[in-house]
């Protein structure tokens, strides 16, 4: 049930990302709703194999984008695996981890894409890229992550209520 909920959430977030969120830009940056849902899900879910959802999210992003599908698939899966490992060590402060993961996740995913475009010869001014894409995207993600976390937490609570020790 938890896995199915995650798949549905990720798919819905992908559709919303493509149709609405990508149009709500700050300069050339936009929030990454799929990333935010993924990070929030890792925080609220008791599922252990989060990287599978990361892989699914990456594949969906890759299939709807002009960037080769394996780049987002690898980065989203690797990022999810990374925050899962970190979460097991500092699980007491989920909000701090949520914000840190969103910050570094945005930079990691955009950074890998920039590297790919640079390798393939697309002319990019790195200072301009940082100013008009990365920085606004980070800001939008940091603003949007808390409401997304609240919503995903509520959905998770209703989907699989935690057992209470009596």
């Amino acid at each position, binding site marked *: 049930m938890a896995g199915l909920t995650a798949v549905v959430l990720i798919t819905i977030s*992908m559709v919303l990302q493509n149709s609405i969120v990508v149009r709500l830009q700050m300069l050339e940056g*936009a929030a990454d709703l799929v990333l935010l849902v993924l990070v929030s899900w890792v925080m609220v879910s008791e599922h252990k194999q989060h990287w599978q959802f990361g892989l699914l999210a990456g594949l969906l*992003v890759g299939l*709807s*984008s*002009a*960037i080769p599908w394996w780049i987002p698939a690898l980065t989203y899966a690797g990022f999810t695996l990374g925050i899962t490992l970190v979460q097991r060590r500092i699980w007491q402060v989920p909000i701090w981890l949520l914000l840190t993961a969103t910050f570094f996740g945005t930079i990691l995913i955009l950074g890998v894409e920039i590297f790919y475009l640079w390798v393939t010869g697309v002319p990019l001014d790195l200072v*301009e890229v940082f100013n008009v894409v990365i920085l606004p995207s980070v800001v939008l993600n940091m603003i949007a992550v808390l409401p997304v976390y609240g919503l995903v937490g509520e959905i998770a609570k209703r989907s699989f209520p935690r057992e209470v020790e009596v």
Partner: protein
Amino acid sequence: MKIRNSQRWISIALGLVVVGILVLALGGYLSAVGDFVLGSVLQAQEWLTVRFQTFQDFYNAPTDLVRLRQENAELQAEVAKLQTEVIDLQQQVSEVELLTALLEFARGQRENEYMAASVVFRDPRPFLKYVVIDVGSDDGILAGMPVVGPEGLVGRVDAVTANAARVQLVTDPDSSVNVRIQPSDTTAVLLGSITSDLSLDLIPIDATINAGDLVLTSGLGGNFPANILVGQVASVRSSATSLFQQAAIQPAVDLNRLDIVLVVVNFQPIDTEPLIPEITEGQ
């Protein structure tokens, strides 16, 4: 016999009184009396009617209230339905306006055959300027076909599936289009950027370019048909030390608000790569 005579005289007297009253009424001598009588009757009738209506309203009020509420709900539903219809019609009007503009564009470029397509979504990655349209190989769309909007060039088909196609916009940082600047008839290369700004590069240093000049596709390179409007020169940059001039371009099409586009289906791009000699090491 005596009684009969007295009744006759009474009848005659009454008849004479009635005739007299009629004569007086026709002569207008009884109007004041008539007004008084009629006014009193009307007042009494009005008094009675008002009381009766009040009683009837009080008696029927609960059923009327229910009926009025039902009618109100029905009317509200009707209003909501009409508002939806108005919104639908407004959307249809804007679509018709857009399609009219596209039709006018197509009429102006008679040598091209077009297929209209709706933009389904934009590329979710911020570095890439692509859109996905709702026609694909089943509709005869091939990779490389040019895509235009009502005012001018939009981009070219980059990849195709059975029911959809991905279009690389001219603003994509990896996009380059050979263009011609009018009226000087100078060739240049149109480049996209990460900020969605368009610029011209490789303009000869001796060419005279001014703000407001038109930029059209040149057809060189075989990727686009010639004479499709791209935009206007916004500003020109040149320096004494550089070999070429650069210019900023104001695109003719608002690429951030693409809803419907036209694919030029009778244009086959020419692959010029085999004609370019390979440069091997040592040469």
